[in-house]
């Protein structure tokens, strides 16, 4: 007979999030859709789409970030050469294996040429699914990039209106903006808790909590975050003698969960990262009053995260977001972890490393794939990095 085990509230919440994470058939989204006959699901890929517009249409935004290390890619590899990253092939696998057969539309944001071309592949492979390449401006003037983006948002709004058979009103958009403001605030709280007491909110748990936001309706995700925050604050956990690091380069293809766990086990508390940026892309609240599309556009132009897929017009600003992240989170170093063959992360990396070097911030770099299985080399590298940071700090 099995001995009953006391499971902490935190563990229970994490177990729920882990169940969502491991479910490659997206059953929670399927159930949501099945609950009402007119419901629709819109998939989206990294890095950012305005989920508010999808939500305002009464649809579920569903984040698709590849197949992870548990999906056997059988068909997907036949679509890609060996020198292309893994996320498009596992995403195709999800599609051709029927795991996305309930998805009514797919958005492919402007992030790199691989995801861009995947938008065209999706049109050919799944002609009955609404699919759209979602372009964002690389010009940040209100009357130039701003106007372009507002019109792109209006096109998306119109397309989703047609899909549901009813226009999306400004009030619906405002309500959705308010809900996502609340959600972003909770994600920021979660990140702040980890900065303050990383042993209370381990990186793998924070990852699972944020990742749940890709598949849950925003209202449910916010509730989950509230529960976790309360539980994590209440549960005292042992503090390790770890160094504090910022993790960067993981904004698209996801690392295996084991990789994130391995970093902490090898002596590195992750105190900031660029994982699943869609959940906190817009910094601060988007105004609820006024023209909702204009508000979303201005937030994108002037109050959004910096990342490799975004042009930095000011050379002096290049890479400073990383320096600021290090200072803000009290980190002692940076780990560059990029998916193999990831153009944005790998092309950006030398420039960011130069900025860190000038700022006297130590760093290491490695590559991974979403299905990387061997963690020992990463553990050794991260462990050595953590040791060297401690030695330098002592000196």
């Amino acid at each position: 007979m099995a001995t009953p085990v006391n499971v902490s509230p935190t563990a229970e919440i994490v177990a729920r999030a882990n169940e969502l994470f491991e479910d490659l058939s997206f059953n929670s989204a399927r159930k949501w859709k099945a609950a009402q006959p007119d419901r629709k699901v819109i998939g989206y890929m990294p890095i950012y789409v305005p989920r508010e517009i999808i939500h305002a249409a009464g649809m579920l935004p569903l984040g698709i970030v590849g197949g992870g290390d548990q999906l056997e890619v059988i068909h997907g590899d036949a679509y890609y050469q060996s020198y292309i990253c893994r996320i498009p092939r596992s995403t195709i696998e999800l599609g051709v294996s029927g795991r996305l057969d309930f998805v009514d539309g797919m958005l492919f944001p402007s992030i790199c040429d691989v995801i861009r071309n995947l938008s065209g592949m999706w049109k050919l492979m799944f002609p009955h699914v609404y699919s759209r390449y979602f372009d964002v401006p690389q010009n940040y003037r209100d009357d130039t990039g701003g106007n372009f983006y507002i019109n792109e948002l209006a096109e998306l709004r119109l397309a989703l209106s047609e899909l549901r058979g009813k226009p999306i009103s400004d009030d619906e958009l405002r309500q959705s903006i308010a809900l996502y403001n609340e959600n972003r605030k909770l994600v920021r709280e979660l990140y702040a808790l980890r900065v303050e007491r990383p042993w209370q909110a381990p990186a793998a748990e924070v990852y699972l909590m944020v990742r749940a936001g890709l598949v849950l309706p925003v209202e449910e995700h916010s509730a989950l975050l509230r529960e976790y925050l309360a539980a994590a604050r209440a549960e005292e956990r042992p503090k390790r003698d770890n160094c504090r690091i910022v993790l960067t380069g993981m904004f698209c293809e996801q690392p295996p969960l084991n990789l994130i766990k391995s970093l902490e086990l090898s002596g590195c508390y992750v105190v900031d990262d660029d994982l699943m940026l869609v959940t906190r892309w817009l910094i601060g609240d988007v105004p609820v009053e006024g023209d909702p599309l204009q508000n979303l556009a201005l937030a994108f132009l002037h109050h959004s995260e910096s990342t490799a897929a975004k042009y930095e017009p000011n050379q002096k600003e290049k890479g400073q977001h990383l320096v600021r992240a290090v200072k803000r989170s009290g980190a002692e170093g940076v780990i560059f972890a990029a998916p193999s063959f990831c153009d944005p992360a790998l092309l950006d990396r030398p420039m960011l490393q130069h900025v860190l070097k000038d700022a006297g911030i130590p760093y290491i770099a490695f590559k991974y794939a979403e299905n990387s299985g061997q963690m020992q080399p990463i553990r050794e590298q991260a462990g050595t990095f953590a040791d060297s940071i401690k030695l330098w700090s002592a000196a």
Partner: protein
Amino acid sequence: MTTATKIVTSRAPVKEVIKDASMMKQKEMMAAHYDRLTSAPETGAKVAATFVPGNLNELIMCFDLLNNLPEVNAIQSGLRRVSGSYVLEAEKIGHSEDVCTYVKSDIGMMAKGNIAPNGKKFPNPDVLLLSYTGCFTFMKWFELLREQYKCETIMLHTPYMGDGKITKNMIDYMVKQLKDDVIPTLERVSGVKFDIDRLREYLKRSTKAEDDLVKVLQSAKAKPSPIDAYFGGIYYIGPIFGAFRGTQDAIDYYRFLREEIEDRLAKGQGPVTPDGDMGKEKYRLVVEGPPNYTSFRQFWKMFYDEGAVVVASSYTKVGGVYDFGFRHDPDKPLETLAEYCLGVYTNRSLPMRIDMLVNYINEYEADGLLINSIKSCNSFSAGQLLMMREVEKRTGKPAAFVESDLVDPRYFSAANIKNRLESYFQMVDQKRAGASAAA
């Protein structure tokens, strides 16, 4: 007229290369351009670096700026077999082995003294005109160069034709960028006031050269084709994709080239290869993807030795797609520049690219499609395996797939490519035999 030129490289023995008169003319044009560039510090000329897709040469000339194209420099390094050491140099200083070798060749060349093909030092650019068209890497490339040169950088964002159409929003966005960012910055950097009539004049010249280029490319519909529209085509696009579009030199060159090709057409001749006139045309192919430049002649030879001629290629459309009717329009000068950028091959959606290839196979009565998939270039390569299947499905013609790289010699496996090509030609033969038997 053809000319024999002795080529000496560090690795290859002395070998006579046969060149058309047009090739010799182009060589002179390119040499003169490199001399203009490398003598800029003495002449006081200012330099704008920009990219081939979305190359706004007419606009650049309005400010008396010299156009320097880093991809073309990387190609030159590849052809001269020095790109391998440049790529290694870039990797040594921290650039990933996974990323574009054009970028690494350029960065490595800078690290090793920035020497132009004429043996003199390239000048530092005065401005980087980041025409972000059809390739994500461009953006990072010029951020990397900006870090080194610390010069003014202008972003011109060309939206992608994801839905297969150019919208008013795209044109308005681009024109606004041209008016509010690109032109004022070029005025400031160059000290030259913008004159829209001067732009119109250059655009008029562009149209003339574009007309002749299209006639040259479409001559490949004849049997035998008087040109090779991939290997030879790369020479043909050189001036118009580079620093000459909008110049009298380009008009003269393309008229001369057209007449040369018309002459070959009238005589029923095939293309000129580095080994002289090609023998009997046995296979007519459409090629998708860029070539390999470090073993360019060896790669080409694998085709002409088998009697294979490329009758149409997508690579010769990366700097502008003219064969479906687009011409620069002097009556709407800024809108036409926007439309040009939006329409380049790699800015077209995958379904549009497939439509083009299917059209080429049908229009040029090709035997099939060959894809040269380039490790460096995700803009081209991601999705090519699906493209191959779709083209096969729609045309009923066989397709084949080979892999190499632009300027990294480590990724050119001659034996592997030759084997695949030979198998492919056998497949075409079998298909033909099957078709004959059925008839």
